[in-house]
């Protein structure tokens, strides 16, 4: 029976629960969650059941805490997907109940991509937070985390037109309405800024900012602002 169940994990966890083997059930469910690609809702349920199995298992408390932490992180990733803006889901012709599982890089792209026309600071903050999941996914990574970080910053910058901004004023006032500044503020108040603040030179050398770079006004604005932010972080 065990042999049969090993090749049928969707039945195995059920048998393990009925035979009071909660630790094995937790392992099976964690495995099922990591394999699930077709349905995000199914992955969510595996994670929930796996977490409960861990909580009610007879493992040592420290081990249980560790497992709760692992499951919670994965639950959070599902939550990022569940809170994708409606317009994005529509463009993918899917719904919360039927959508497949998206990888973290895909989620970042969806949050900052063109389809999410009204992307605001909350979306960009989520994109930055999703960077945390990049290092531990074993999919082939197109770029490394640093490059992704720059891409998200570029997209935040490109949300506004910078041509008609008055440079003679304090950038923190004249630019306070821009998505970039709102993102900076939000990241600062939530304590996220330290881990995502970019090298300004690297940021300015991004291809996506080619057009904006031509304006010295813009370059001045960006440098002045990031410099000020670096100082508040120290």
């Amino acid at each position, binding site marked *: 029976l065990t042999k049969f169940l090993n090749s049928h994990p*969707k*039945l195995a*966890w*059920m048998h393990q*629960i*009925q035979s*009071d083997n*909660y630790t094995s059930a937790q392992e099976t469910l964690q495995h099922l969650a990591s394999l699930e690609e077709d349905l995000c809702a199914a992955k*969510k*349920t595996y*994670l*929930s*059941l796996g*977490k*409960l*199995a861990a*909580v*009610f298992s*007879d493992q040592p408390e420290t081990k249980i805490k560790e497992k709760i932490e692992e*499951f*919670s992180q994965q*639950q*959070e990733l599902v939550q990022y997907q569940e809170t994708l803006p409606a317009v994005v889901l529509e463009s993918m012709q899917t719904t919360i109940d039927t959508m497949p599982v998206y990888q973290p890089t895909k989620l970042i792209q969806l949050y900052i991509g063109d389809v999410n026309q009204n992307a605001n600071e909350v979306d960009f903050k989520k994109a930055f937070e999703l960077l945390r999941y990049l290092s531990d996914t074993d999919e082939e990574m197109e770029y490394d985390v640093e490059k992704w970080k720059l891409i998200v910053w570029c997209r935040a910058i490109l949300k506004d037109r910078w041509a008609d901004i008055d440079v003679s004023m304090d950038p923190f006032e004249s630019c306070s309405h821009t998505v970039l500044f709102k993102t900076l503020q939000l990241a600062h108040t939530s304590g996220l800024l330290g881990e995502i603040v970019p090298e300004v030179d690297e940021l300015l050398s991004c291809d996506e900012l080619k057009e904006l770079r031509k304006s010295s006004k813009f370059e001045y604005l960006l440098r002045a602002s990031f410099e000020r932010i670096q100082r508040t972080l120290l």
Partner: protein
Amino acid sequence: VAPDSSIELPVTIDDQRKIDSIEWLVFDPSQRCEALKQCNAVMRQFLASRKHEAAHDVFVKIPSDSIDILYNEWHAQADKDVPLPADADNAIREHLCMKAYLGAHTSFKEWFKHLHTSKPQEYQPTIHQTSTFGSVSIPELVAEEHRQKVSADKISAWDDKLRSLCDLVCDKIYNVLLFPQGWLMDMRDDGDSEEGEWRNHQMGLLRRVCIPYLSNLLLTVLVDTGGRYKECGQLANVLASEEYKLYELFTKQEGKEIMKRIQKALIKTL
């Protein structure tokens, strides 16, 4: 705590005295906050001993406009921007938590009654046709068909009602499980008086009694309404959510039992 959770203990004379005493406190609007606190305290005792009937009787002693009265009384003596004192705020919140809980329990009772007492009997055919050329007349056949249809309609109406009652119970139970910021959890710190400590202790205890109890009622309703096995997985999502941490309110034994029940429901969805 009653050994069997399905047994509802009767209201004793002593209980009735506690219930009636609240009446004396609601005469004077300036005492409404005190009345609310006393009502909450008596309800905590009743719920801890699973006296839902008694808890309900106390709850209705508090007039429904009491929260407004509390605010009015407060603003009569303090500026508009000054928030209510923490103890009053906590008492109001507790009252709303109790309301949500009683609502869940009442709708469960309605569902239960409908399921067990008002199901129409399956129609027993009165004519047994033996052959196409039997002695049954056409008018009799028509009448028979009509009786069958009436009976089928009755059963389907009963089933529709059961389903809508099931929806209602689910909503009301989730209102408790997902009460904003946690059911029976204070939002504001009210200093550490001895009385406050006792109250916190009771509320913690009630969370550990009532949340597992309602979770089990939810499973009962979903399974016995028929075909709603998939929704049992949703309960797992709610119990495992890190935002509410409801899983912490279960003992290992209770947790294992409810997981087994959820698993038994989910196997039917394969």
